[in-house]
């Protein structure tokens, strides 16, 4: 097609594919940060938390506010993680504790109410418009790999996401707390009878998930518009991720997030072109973007048809 080549180490189409794969990975790790918390809470506490997207939004707002005050992005990140974690802790102790025993419909309704509450609260405090948050100066450039210019900030997101994934793996698999979390998921009564305060364990898990959502929010802040309701579109993608990955499975969430990120990005990037090769221009222009945006839902449908428990179901029968 277009063969205008730059002084590149790779041919144009390969360069484009590479940068699209990086974009996909970046979206993927961001989704993983959200999905990890959501799937833990669901897998271990069997609790459906639609307000997870609100914690993402709170993280972005806390981070943006602290960043603006102190001029330090690191403090912004810290504020987001601690702030969202603290809100998660308070939510768990005061708002949600009564809901754990109820059925899923009640949980969905109550946490949907929380979404409305948080959106309105943010609007009252920060106003209805988007607020300002920039990329930290140190990461505002682009890096060139194999002739592909890629924003260094997005690289940083990929790096942080992978580190968190590694940290979670070590926490869950290699530490005593992780062992208790795993045991609490499958045999809560047994763990409790061994003298472990299962309630506090749950609270810990919930706050951890909230902190990760806050981290995702603050890292997305410089890329997307920080505004009330920013958590909802990303919540939908996150739900797709945990369904594909298998409810309750961190490993599943990790792989599914990367798959969804890459499939969604590549679909958006190349589907319209592919469609143009098959149909005439007008039809392709109409169908291409529509199909591209459906791709991950189609993927989800196929996964559900073939493996109803998701790609990486948790092995024990107790975790639903």
């Amino acid at each position, binding site marked *: 097609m277009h063969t205008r080549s730059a002084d590149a180490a790779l041919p144009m189409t390969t360069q484009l594919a590479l940068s699209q794969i990086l974009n996909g990975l970046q979206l993927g790790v961001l989704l993983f940060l959200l999905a990890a918390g959501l799937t833990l809470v669901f897998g271990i506490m069997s609790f459906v938390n639609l307000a997870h997207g609100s914690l993402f939004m709170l993280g972005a707002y806390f981070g943006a506010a602290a960043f603006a005050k102190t001029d330090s992005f690191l403090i912004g990140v810290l504020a987001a993680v601690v702030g969202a974690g603290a809100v998660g802790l308070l939510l768990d102790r005061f708002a949600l504790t009564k809901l754990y025993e109820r059925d899923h419909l009640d949980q969905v309704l109550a946490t949907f109410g929380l979404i409305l509450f948080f959106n309105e609260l943010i*609007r009252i405090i920060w106003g209805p418009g*988007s607020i300002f948050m920039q990329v930290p100066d140190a990461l505002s450039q682009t890096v060139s790999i194999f002739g592909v*210019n890629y924003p260094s900030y997005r690289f940083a997101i990929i790096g942080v996401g992978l580190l968190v994934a590694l940290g979670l793996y070590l926490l869950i698999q290699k530490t005593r707390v992780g062992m208790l979390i795993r045991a609490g998921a499958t045999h809560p009564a047994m763990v409790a009878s061994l003298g472990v305060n299962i309630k506090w364990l749950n609270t810990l898990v919930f706050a951890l998930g909230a902190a990760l959502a806050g981290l995702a929010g603050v890292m997305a802040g410089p890329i997307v*518009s920080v505004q009330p309701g*920013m958590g909802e579109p990303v919540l939908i993608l996150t739900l797709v991720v945990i369904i594909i990955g298998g409810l309750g499975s961190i490993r599943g969430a990790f792989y599914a997030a990367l798959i969804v990120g890459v499939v969604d990005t590549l679909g958006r990037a190349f589907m*319209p072109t592919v469609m143009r090769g098959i149909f005439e221009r007008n039809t392709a222009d109409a169908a291409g973007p529509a199909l591209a945006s459906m791709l991950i839902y189609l993927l989800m449908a196929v996964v559900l048809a073939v493996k109803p428990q998701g790609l990486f179901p948790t092995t024990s029968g107790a975790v639903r």
Partner: protein
Amino acid sequence: MHKLKLLTVAVAAAAAIGSAQAQIKIGFVAELSGPQAPLGQDQYDALMLLVEQNGGKLGGQAVQIIKEDSQLKPDVANQVVDKLLEKDKVQIITGVTFSNIMMAVHKKITDKGVFLIGSNAGPSPIAGAQCSPYFFSTSWQNDMQAEVVGKYASDKGYKSVMAMAPNYQAGKDFIAGFKRTYKGGTVVDEIYTPLNQQDFSAELAQVASKKPDALYVFYPGGLGVNFVKQFQQAGLNKSMTVMSASTVDGTTLPALRDAALGMLSGTFWGPDFPNDANQKFVAAFEKKYNRIPSQYAAQSYDAAQLLDSAIRKVAGKVDNKKAFHAALKAADFKSVRGNFKFNTNQFPVQDMFMFDVSKDSKGRVSLRTVSKPLVNHTDSYAAQCQMKAL
């Protein structure tokens, strides 16, 4: 002295309550909650600015402004308009932010013989076949803001342009409007993204690989904030011109600041316009609200000025519909945009400008006038409007 002033205000307020019967009731409908609320808020603030400057009056008559939030939901808009028409019995309605809301309430209001002064949305049907003598617009017909960008791209001699917009009706209209006036080059690719898509990294990589002379985008509200940030982070702002419509404006610039520097935008008005009416308006708005007014504020201020002039002409007798209509049609006020008159379909005939984002004299990021590609521009639908006599 101060006490005396206070007393006068109290007396005036008491008098206003006393004469409530004689007040002209004006309904104001706009998006006042949700992500698009900054637009509605600017519309409301600008309207109230003139009302307060005139001591609670328009055209020398006491007015009561009844504010309603349409929540960007056509069904809610229908309810609040019903309330304004049936319960409050307003004689005039102004505002309306989004085109889908306008389409939901336009017929209902104008059929009732209530005057509707639109201060934002200008969908094509009501400029064309469904035009009504009871509707006036002080903003634009939607396509106008795209057409000026197309003309600018032609004037600049850009040979290849890529276009990006969300995949919904307005996105398609804004690209069609651009193509209508863009001559001498080709639109090499059109990219439509789902309306809820927040990340444009995949699309920007496509754009970077195709290297067009310029990129044309339409991303209103928060989407524009996302787009501009990501475009800048990808380092594309150093190598590519972005021409936008409804993307960088007074409501999104505070969230963008330096990231938007250099972006071009096409519309009808900018805060740096030198005419007296505008200088006065911008200074008063900044003083009262402590921010630079957006074009939505300018449109609504003109709607308030239009009402002010027309109510004065009929000495408050807005029930004399024929006379009030003629008074509105005359548009006998000093628009903040300069040239202003109504076309046969009662949409503005106006000059259209290009702006770039740069620092103003106070070092704030704002819009600066670059050129005037279209003079006395009319919309493309007026010919389809068979305006009924009142």
